[in-house]
Each structure stands twice: as C-alpha cells, then as structure tokens.
C-alpha cells in the first residue's frame, strides 16, 4: 500500500475537522474499553495470563528459527506447502503464482493485515483476478477503495448512512428504492452479495492469528464466520502470515487466545476460533484440495534482537488503539498506512522507514495507557521514545528543535546553571506579568499560548528557592 504517512500533520488536521469521524470514534471509545474492563473483572487470572502470553512470545522470538523450521516440517507432513518470502514483492509473486496455477478468477479473502501490508488486492486485480474481501468491514472499505482504519474494526470510521450510499452506488443490480436505513438491512445485503462470491470462488486467502509449530496448524479468529467460508469452500486455501506469528504448542496458542478476545472486544472468546491443518483428508466431504502457507519476513528479521524486538510480541488485538487519546481523536487513516495507533506508530517506522514515518512516534502524549492495556506488555512508550532519539541522532528533526534539545540537555546536566537560569526566568516573568497576572503570548511558546494563557509566577521565586527558604533541603 502507498503510504501517506509523511503527510501526517495534514491528515490529522483533516481528521480533527471531520464531524462524522468524531461521532464514529466516540462510539469506539465508549464501547471496547468498557467491555474489556468487564471481561477482566470476570477473570481473576487475567493479569497472570498476560504474563504467560508475554513469556510465550519471548520464548518463541528467542528460538524463532527452530520454531519456524518445526512449523514448516509439520505443514509438509500434513500435505501443505510453505513459501518463504523476504519481501512484500516476493509474497505477491508467490500468491499470484498459486492463483494462476489454480486457474483462479475469483479469490475470497478473510481479513489479513499482512494482506494489506503487501497490497495483495491491487496486485491480483492488475493480473485479472478478482479479490473479494468477506469480513463485513473490509468488504465495505474495499468497495470504497479505502484502507482499514482499525485492526479489528476496519470500517469504524464510517456511519451507516455512508455505508448505505456506498452499497447503492456499487450494488447497481438491486432495486434503487430499497430501504437501507438500518444496519440489519445493510448486513443482509452484504451477506447475500457475498454468499454468491463464497460459493463461486476458486481460491480462499486468509491471514493467520497464529501458526502452531507442534502441529503445523494455522489459527483463525473471527466473529462473522467469513474466514471459515473462505477456507472451506474454494479448491485452494492460501494463508499469508508474518514470521513472528508462530507459537510452540496448542497449549501456548490457547493461553494467547484467552487474552486476545478479552483485550480486543471484551468477549470471553471470539465466536469462531479455527485450527486448520493441511488440505482435505481422505473421505472428507468438504475442504480445500491444496493448502499453502506464505511466510513473510518484510522487515521482521531486522527488528529481531534490536530496540524494537518486543514489538514482535504483538498479537494485533487493537487494545492500544482503543485506549489511545491520539487514536481516539484522529482515527486510523491519519496514520497514513496499514497500521495505526500506538502499535502502528512503533511498527510503521520499522517497516517503511523513519524518514517517511517520522511524525508518528511524535504523535503521542506518552501517557502510557497503551502499555497498561497491552495483553503481551509491549513497552510501547519506551519504543516511541527510542524512535524520537533516533530521529535526533539521524538529524531528521528540525534544527530549531535540535538546538533547543541541545540547550536543554546542556542545562539539565548542570544543576547550578539550571537553577540560575530558572531563577532569572521566573523573576523576569513575575515582573513582566505583575499587572495582568497572566500571559496571552510568549516567545518560543506560541503553540502553547495559542489555546490558553500562562499564569504569571508569583514573586516568591522558583520551587527550589522557596523550598530552601522554608528551611528544607540540603545544608539548610
């Protein structure tokens, strides 16, 4: 997918001015976090399960080569094929080749963030194959040619009226006078349209929430059941997954599943959790004849063992988005690429480069809520700070902010100088603000005073000097 991440400031300004988007985002903010809290309250072991999930992912990452090879061997034993791909381009080529060999005209798709990452839909279309998204939210945004705006609720930014308009425009064969006022009518229309696609598709393409090394199984989690129709009806099932999705055993997958849905939607368990192992067996009445797993690196090995290693623990639940004050204000599209929210702000610079995505790590108040709610305890705020530090080192920040930071660090490392400057500054502000009691405008702080006044300090000096005068502190 083409990124518009470099235009983050403009994207965010546009998003903030969009009343419909703000309505939609306020519904999100009310829903998911409250349901997550209820689910947590019902399960006393939830915090301990988060630790267990984190430990599983840490163990896998420390032995990633071993588990990937074990997974591949089990897939082959079950009659499937593994395709290793270094880049998005290699993955696109591998998928297209399988589709062509199968003589595919239509490919149904389960929701896959990796599919978005490699822009597989555009690639298939260019080669005359019709990709059909089957997750309701993904289907809607595919009709609108938009990227997802949330990992688990891709059409969260749209109102039902916008969806109705899209359906009227795209489903021309249906009666123009039909009523599409209610979400139920919209769902029924999409369900009917997609039924035909499911049954007629040649290839089903899904992502995977996990890959299980013990059995060569892939795990799919949905609430709609669309992924299940995607793999069980066509002749060929292709799974696209990135390397870090592998887990050791069924028991390990189970532990992660216990925190996934609770963190994502607040459900005890998603409606459909599926473990697929190889193609159709002898005597089976349904299921695909061929089973392919496309294993994608696309930047993961570069993150491994480095400052962003823990990001590879991510299970894509979306909890950090749901709790982020920035995401809740601007939505997912402003981030300009496939991922969004705190996990996107850490992941995107790693995948498309800090030059392109440099605004994202700065679009954070570092409030820490994302780390608080992360089911695998990824230190997202620390990583955002690491990106900021890299920007400074690579001289990607403006010369004003760089010299400002240099000046600050010079002061901050010399307490006597810091106190002296602070004393002078506070005394100056106190004198200048005596008459009015506050400042409407200040040099170098225009961004701050644009929206509020700065109260003038009282004439007692800085906190430290008052503290000393009151008889506390060293030597007093």
């Amino acid at each position: 997918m083409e990124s518009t991440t470099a235009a983050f400031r403009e994207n965010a300004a546009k998003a903030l001015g969009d009343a419909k988007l703000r309505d939609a985002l306020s519904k999100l903010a009310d829903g998911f976090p409250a349901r997550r809290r209820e689910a947590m309250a019902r399960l006393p072991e939830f915090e301990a399960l988060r630790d267990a999930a984190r430990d599983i992912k840490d163990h896998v990452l420390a032995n990633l080569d071993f588990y990937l090879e074990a997974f591949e061997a089990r897939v082959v034993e079950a009659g499937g094929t593994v395709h290793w791909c270094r880049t998005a381009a290699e993955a696109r080529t591998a998928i297209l080749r399988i589709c062509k060999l199968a003589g595919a005209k239509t490919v149904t798709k389960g929701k896959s963030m990796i599919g978005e990452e490699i822009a597989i839909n555009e690639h298939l279309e260019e080669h005359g194959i019709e990709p059909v998204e089957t997750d309701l939210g993904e289907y809607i945004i595919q009709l609108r040619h938009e990227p997802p705006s949330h990992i688990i609720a891709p059409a969260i930014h749209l109102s039902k009226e916008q969806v109705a308009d899209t359906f009227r425009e795209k489903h021309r064969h249906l009666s123009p006078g039909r009523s599409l006022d209610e979400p139920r009518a919209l769902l029924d229309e999409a369900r009917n349209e997609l039924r035909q696609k499911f049954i007629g598709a040649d290839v089903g393409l899904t992502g995977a929430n996990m890959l299980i090394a013990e059995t060569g199984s892939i795990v799919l989690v949905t609430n709609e059941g669309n992924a299940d129709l995607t793999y069980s009806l066509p002749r060929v099932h292709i799974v696209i997954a990135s390397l870090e999705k592998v887990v050791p055993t069924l028991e390990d997958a189970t532990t992660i599943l216990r925190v996934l849905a609770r963190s994502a939607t607040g459900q005890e368990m998603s409606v459909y959790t599926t473990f697929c192992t190889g193609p159709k067996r002898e005597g089976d009445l349904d299921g695909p004849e061929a089973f392919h797993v496309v294993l994608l690196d696309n930047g993961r090995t570069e993150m491994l063992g480095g400052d962003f290693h823990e990001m590879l623990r991510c299970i894509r639940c979306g909890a950090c988005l749901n709790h982020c004050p920035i995401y809740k204000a601007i939505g997912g599209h402003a981030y300009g690429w496939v991922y969004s929210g705190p996990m996107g702000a850490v992941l995107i610079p790693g995948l498309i480069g800090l030059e392109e995505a440099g605004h994202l790590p700065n679009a954070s108040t570092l409030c820490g809520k994302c780390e608080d709610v992360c089911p695998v305890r990824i230190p997202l705020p620390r990583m955002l700070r690491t990106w900021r530090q890299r920007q400074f080192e690579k001289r990607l920040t403006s010369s004003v902010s760089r010299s400002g930071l240099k000046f600050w660090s010079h002061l901050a490392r010399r307490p006597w100088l810091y106190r002296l400057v602070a004393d002078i500054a506070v005394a100056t502000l106190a004198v200048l603000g005596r008459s009015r009691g506050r400042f409407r405008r200040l040099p170098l702080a225009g961004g701050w005073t644009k929206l509020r006044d700065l109260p003038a300090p009282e004439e007692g000096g800085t906190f430290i000097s008052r503290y000393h005068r009151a008889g506390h502190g060293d030597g007093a």
Partner: protein
Amino acid sequence: MSNARSDILGAVKAALQQAGGPQRADTTSVVSASKRLGDHRANLIPARGRLGVKARVDLFIREAEQASATVARVSGLSGLPREVARYLAKNNLPMTLKVAPGISEPAIPWTRETLLSVEEGRADGSESASVSRAFAGIAETGTLVMLSGPENPTTLNFLPPTHVVVVAASEIVGDYEETWNRLREKGQQGRFMPRAVNWITGPSRTADIEQTLLMGAHGPQRLHIVIVDEETPAP
C-alpha cells in the same frame, strides 16, 4: 524460493546471535524448545472450569447462553429428533434439515419425527438448518469443539442460518486444555489434528457498522445446543 528460506533463517540466527541474550549463548535453548514441543505442557489454566460434573455442565450452559446460544437438554440421543422439531416449530423455521453423516439414520431415529424432512451430507448453501455433533463442550466459555471429517463436514457449521449441535453431558469438560489432551489420546501419535478444529462460541455476529451488534453475519444466525444426558460412553 529456497534462497529466501535460507536468507530468512540465516537473518533470524544472525539477529539472535548478535543480540547475544543468555538464551542464545549455547544450544540449551533449542533443546528446551524441542522438549517444549514434545511435552506440550499446559500454562496457567483459569480456575473457573475446575468444577464437579453437574456444576460444570451448568457453567457451560450459562456461558453458552451468555454468548447468545440457546440450550436444551434431552435424556438420550433418541430424543434428539423431537427436540429439533420442537425448536424449529417454536422459531417458525422450515422443517428441513441437513444432518452430519455421523448422526444420521439409523443411529438417530429421524424418520420417527414425521414433520421433519432430513437429508445427510455436507452443506451447499441451500439448507435452512443443519445438525452436527460436537467432540466436546468447554465449560470455561460455553464453547463447542467441532472436528472435521467424513462424519462431520465443516460446511454444516457455517453455511445454514440455523445450526443445531449435539453434545453429550459427559463430553463437557472444564477447559480447552482437556480437549487437546483428549484429541492427542484419540488420534495416532503425530497426526491427531483433523483438517479443521472449530471452536464455536455462540452464533455468528458483527459490529462492523457503527458498533451495532448483529447476529448472523456470514455464519449461522441461531446456534442451538442440545445436551444429551445419557446413552453416551464416558470419555
């Protein structure tokens, strides 16, 4: 592609060695990783499901209903046709069924229920209701475990708008881990996983339009669970 494989595995090894964590200092971690695969030890299991038989079945029912499934109990498998007919009539649904080969005639006396029109096989999208058999029920979250196979086609779980699932009370276990162990015991060593294992917790749903929760997105709009209390061998 073989180049890609060795490149990726090489990059993984190099990154982990360079990181030089204690875990990569020698080969012990690979030994423990391969032991982990063989042992498939359970991690923390929530206490919720650890109950006696009766309380476990009650918890299963509560959790399944919480997930918007409906539940009925019959005293034996022979009572299944009558319960299915009752359920369809009560909900004003067509009296036609596609049943899984594993629970067709003569195992189940479907023809005794003369109002029902019953066929067996996989689903193709034309059915209004299906009946299949669960391998287990999990009390922890009211989840059904379905195994694919000639006796239980996967399409029955997803295509028809109404899905009826039969599970024996004795097959209702406390937690997911117990079903993995039962599956390993049942299957031959190494190949115990059927092509598809489907955990089902309530009927299909979506909240993709304005966060409005709606049932029956692509899978069934109704999930009816029939618990059979007797006539089944203990696990």
